[in-house]
């Protein structure tokens, strides 16, 4: 909302700088976004009276103008502007003047004739859009007066935000009321009335309301004998500065009243309304109306329309129709002022996509008491500016008008104290409510408050408490820490786990990512991930693009995409993780948002010292990270089993594993399926994993069980086997562990070798076994016996070449 201060000053007088006024309004709930100085013209731009206009002796299209600029001898100026006539008052920028766009005027010769300045258009002075002709000033402008000194030229515009509950403040008057209440000064509220002549309006117009729910009050006035012409400068300036474009004097006058008093008006060409009838009704299905913007609109039965004897002539409260539009030839006006139901206007405005100033105000509720007053203001203004004669009387339906019953609200002073946390004297409460224009009477220790008709937002006690607090300023309420029993705060288990996982993964050198929860249907179909593998995708009904068409089933959707972005940006290494959700619907039709830990590795490790680049990442890197994370959560080193995955939709069938703990799958890890990598423009191998967050959270919350630190030495023995390439290395580890001999402390694979002398298609695996007893030093003999048992077991189970 834009308010020129010169306009505001007609309604209220404040004793403060514009900045201080802005601060006061901001703290009253109307944040001021800007203070704009406008019309601050150079003092050498003056009012000139055209004494004579003569053709230029050498240039056909130029005139030589002799001007009275209040300096005795006439000043000569050359101009190319049309429509110049002796006697006109026009602005001249004299030599030395600086125009708003920064140009500085000089005395210049045009085809041999010296020009002491330039006659200016409103566009050159930034007072309007018209650049085609010289701005003609009012006849009473005194030659020689700097233009900046003419009332209404120089101004300051307040740009402020009005919250959606305060429709009453979408006007100069509304803001003036707030300034008056906040500053404790009186409000001036003049109510101009038109002079009425001729036959009563009721003879020309009949109004019928068929939809009283949508239009509880409708008033009309008839103005005869208007001359539709451009508005005078002051009116055009006001409208422009308040953010509207001037059209013609009739439309501008109605807009002026709306901007000033908050009540939107509409002017019809009465002679173009069939039968002089106004009907307010719901549209019939399929009815059509061409609105003022030239668009033909098919109406909906929910729409409220104004109709004449033939059909719809306006979308009530939103936009008029082209057919009854005021034009240059219009002579008789029907001025409409009404209260249209906010919800109905909002629905139609939303449906049609028309965001007019009128609709904006009706949607936020206008003041029913303002309906006839605005009509009088407009008729008076049109009478003054367009020669219109108001017909006697306002045609009103329902007869006698309608004012809604404003609720009487009980306000208990103790409730004020309880909600605000500060005691406030009764007198002060009453004073503040009255400053708002509310009626306030005492009743059994409480107040009974009736809000003024423009404050439809005041419905209950709490609303009044806010008003009382607002008028004193929120800064006046003390800052106090609550008194409550001392209890400990607690982060959630989910977040504590996430924080722990984050630390572990960061320690592994990965960067945390937060990616959008959206993906496209194709990616979502290809990339089910782990926690979302059994979920049906959830589609967005009104996405902004197909890229946000579905909610991802796996955080990997975002991570893989971010990987592709980073690779495209030149990253040699991408190591990242996200702790996020998958979304979908399970087999029972229930929506689920399972959490997952997902990670991605791609490229080559950054150089770790003096080397061009580190080794290319591979499965072992990914597995090592997962193992470290599991160990970091307190899981036993050998608790997780990595099983070849076989067929899996989104992973390479031969390069991926299911991770199991105690027989339960907790996640998957491996190489992203080449088809998906390709679809994401990833040429390199991408290693990914996804683990079930809830299961990890369970491990994380377990108690630590300590084992004693060994006091006796361990003895290690090595074994080596030659096996087929396909033989899983973990089989031997598991076999040895399955002996469950307490003296076998640890088994570790320390070498995996292919090449001569190992035959092609085979590999050599070397394991080291540590033997130790908790209570004594093992003898060589005892170790020998246990070790022999291990060898025997392995020979029994496997048919390979075992070298102890």
């Amino acid at each position, binding site marked *: 909302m834009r308010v020129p201060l010169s306009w505001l000053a007609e309604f209220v007088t404040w004793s403060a700088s514009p900045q201080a006024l802005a601060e006061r309004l901001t*703290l*009253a*709930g109307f*944040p001021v976004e800007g203070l704009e100085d406008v019309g601050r013209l150079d003092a050498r731009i003056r009012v000139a009276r055209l004494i004579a206009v003569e053709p230029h002796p050498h240039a056909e299209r130029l005139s030589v103008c002799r001007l009275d600029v209040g300096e005795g001898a006439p000043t000569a100026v050359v101009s190319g502007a049309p429509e110049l006539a002796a006697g006109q008052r026009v602005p001249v920028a004299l030599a030395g003047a600086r125009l708003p766009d920064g140009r500085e005027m000089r005395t210049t010769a045009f085809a041999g004739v010296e020009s002491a300045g330039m006659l200016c258009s409103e566009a050159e002075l930034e007072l309007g859009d018209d650049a085609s002709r010289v701005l003609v000033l009012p006849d009473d402008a005194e030659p020689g007066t700097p233009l900046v000194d003419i009332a209404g030229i120089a101004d300051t515009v307040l740009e402020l935000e009005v919250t959606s509950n305060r429709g009453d403040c979408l006007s100069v008057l509304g803001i003036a009321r707030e300034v008056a209440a906040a500053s404790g000064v009186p409000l001036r509220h003049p109510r101009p009335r038109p002079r009425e002549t001729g036959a009563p309006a009721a003879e020309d117009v009949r109004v019928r309301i068929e939809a009283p729910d949508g239009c509880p009050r409708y008033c009309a006035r008839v103005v005869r004998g208007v001359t539709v012409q451009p508005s005078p400068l002051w009116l055009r300036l006001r409208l422009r500065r308040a953010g509207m474009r001037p059209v013609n004097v009739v439309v501008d006058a109605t807009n002026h009243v709306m901007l000033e008093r908050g009540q939107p008006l509409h002017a019809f060409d009465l002679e173009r309304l069939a039968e002089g009838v106004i009907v307010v009704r719901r549209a019939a299905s399929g009815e059509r109306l061409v609105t003022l913007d030239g668009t033909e609109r098919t109406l909906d039965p929910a729409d409220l329309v104004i109709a004449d004897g033939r059909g719809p002539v306006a979308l009530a409260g939103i936009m008029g129709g082209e057919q009854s539009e005021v034009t240059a030839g219009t002579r008789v006006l029907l001025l409409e002022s009404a209260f249209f139901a906010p*919800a109905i206007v909002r629905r139609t405005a*939303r449906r049609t996509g028309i965001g007019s100033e009128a609709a904006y105000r009706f949607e936020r509720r206008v003041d029913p008491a303002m309906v006839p007053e605005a009509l009088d203001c407009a008729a008076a203004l049109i009478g003054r500016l367009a020669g219109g004669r108001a017909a006697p009387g306002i045609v009103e339906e329902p007869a006698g008008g309608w004012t809604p019953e404003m609720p009487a609200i009980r306000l208990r002073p103790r409730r004020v104290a*309880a*909600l*605000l*946390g*500060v005691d406030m004297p009764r007198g002060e409460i009453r004073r503040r409510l009255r400053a708002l224009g509310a009626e306030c009477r005492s009743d059994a220790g409480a107040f009974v408050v009736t809000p003024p008709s423009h404050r439809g937002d005041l419905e*209950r006690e*709490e609303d009044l*408490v806010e008003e009382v*607090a*607002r008028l004193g300023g*929120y*800064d006046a309420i*003390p*800052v*106090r820490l*609550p008194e*409550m029993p*001392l209890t*400990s*705060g*607690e*982060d*959630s288990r989910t*977040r504590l786990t996430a*924080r722990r996982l984050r630390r572990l993964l*960061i320690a*592994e*050198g*990965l*960067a*945390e990512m*937060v990616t*959008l*929860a*959206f993906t496209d249907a194709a990616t979502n179909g290809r990339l089910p991930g782990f926690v979302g593998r059994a979920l049906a995708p*959830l*589609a*967005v*009904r*009104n996405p*902004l693009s197909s890229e946000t068409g579905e*909610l991802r089933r796996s955080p990997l959707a975002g991570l893989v995409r971010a990987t592709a*972005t*980073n690779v495209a*940006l030149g990253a040699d*290494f991408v*190591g*990242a993780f996200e702790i996020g959700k998958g*979304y979908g619907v399970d087999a029972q039709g229930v*929506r689920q*948002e399972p959490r997952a830990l997902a990670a991605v590795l791609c490229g080559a490790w*950054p150089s*770790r*010292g003096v080397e061009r680049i580190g080794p290319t990442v591979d499965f072992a890197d990914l597995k090592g990270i997962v193992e470290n994370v599991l160990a970091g959560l307190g899981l036993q080193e050998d608790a997780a089993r990595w099983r070849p995955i076989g067929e899996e939709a989104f992973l390479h069938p031969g390069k991926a594993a299911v991770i199991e703990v105690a027989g339960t799958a907790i996640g998957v890890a491996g190489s992203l399926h080449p088809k998906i990598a390709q679809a994401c423009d990833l040429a390199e191998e991408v290693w990914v994993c996804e683990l079930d967050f809830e299961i990890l959270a369970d491990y994380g919350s377990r108690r630590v069980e300590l084992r004693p630190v060994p006091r006796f030495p361990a003895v290690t023995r090595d074994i080596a086997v030659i096996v087929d390439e396909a033989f899983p290395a973990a089989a031997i580890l598991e076999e040895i562990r399955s002996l469950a001999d307490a003296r076998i402390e640890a088994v570790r694979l320390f070498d995996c070798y292919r090449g001569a002398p190992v035959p092609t298609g085979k590999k050599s695996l070397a394991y080291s076994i540590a033997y130790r007893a908790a209570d004594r030093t093992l003898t060589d003999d005892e170790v020998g016996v246990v070790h022999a048992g291990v060898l025997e077991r392995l020979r029994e189970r496997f048919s390979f070449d075992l070298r102890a």
Partner: protein
Amino acid sequence: MEEELARLREAALAEIAACGTEAELEAVRVRYLGRKGSLTEAVRGLGRVPPAERPALGALVNQAKEAVEAAVAVAGERLAAARLAESLAHDRIDVTLPGRRRPRGHAHPLRLVEDEIVDVFVGMGFQVAEGPEVEDDYHNFAALNFGADHPARDAQDTLFLADGPDLLLRTHTSPVQIRYMRATQPPLRVVVPGTVYRRDDLDPTHSPMFQQVEGFMVDERVSFADLKGVLVHFLRRLFGAETGVRFRPSFFPFTEPSAEVDIACVRCAAAGAADPACRVCRGRQWLEILGAGMIHPNVLRAVGYDPETVQGFAFGLGTDRIAILRYGIEDLRLFYENDLRFLAQFPS
């Protein structure tokens, strides 16, 4: 025998003196004092000496042996010292060569800031709660006192799901207020971090997905003054003990009275003066940082509380906005595009 002993001793001492390296010295030691060394043999030879001569001869043998041992020790120290001096004089490494590093990980700035925010409230005794991101109209709007035709319910602003007429992506964390209060009786202090959604394209100032932290406190007497106390404490913990904080009237459907909370511009405050061209506050000197208010009686009723007996406050803030101010970020997209060159600038 005696002569032989003297000759051995002299020879050994001479050889020891001539040793230039510790290896040579060790060879000499083994030759004389080793298991088969000459002096060791001499000790063994005592057995063949007549018993009467043994004490005298034994003493001589021991003297010789001790003398040689002492000489070895002295020479050993001399040679070790020489070797150390040699090493100190010549061994050099290039300490300017790069260290051998593992890659360093990084936390996402939104998570760092979220943890920081949550920690302040946990420190004040708040419990952390979370809720679903796929919500329904009731929890996201109706129970929070949004009117049936409130503009926020419009498909312009809210992302709806195809699965049901009622399903949407929550537009704020406030539905968790409803879920939590329905399940719990006052007194309560709760803080709710979470992801929320709006129907916006990703651009420098908008995102279809962003982060919020919601907080609320309900008891018999929690007042607006308490709200101010808690939020001023929080903002000063986050932005510094001297940070200016102001409360302005505002409007939200789910609070009454409602407030918008501003902090003094962090950039202007750091510079010590208001900058009319400041790119953070655009010359306004204040930054909108959160919305708050006393929980609306209709909301309390919706969760089954009696507004005549309990009351409380609620607030909501944008984690992204705080992160933007915290790190001087000018483009919201940086948070969700995950360019590693951006992420790598944050601590581990």
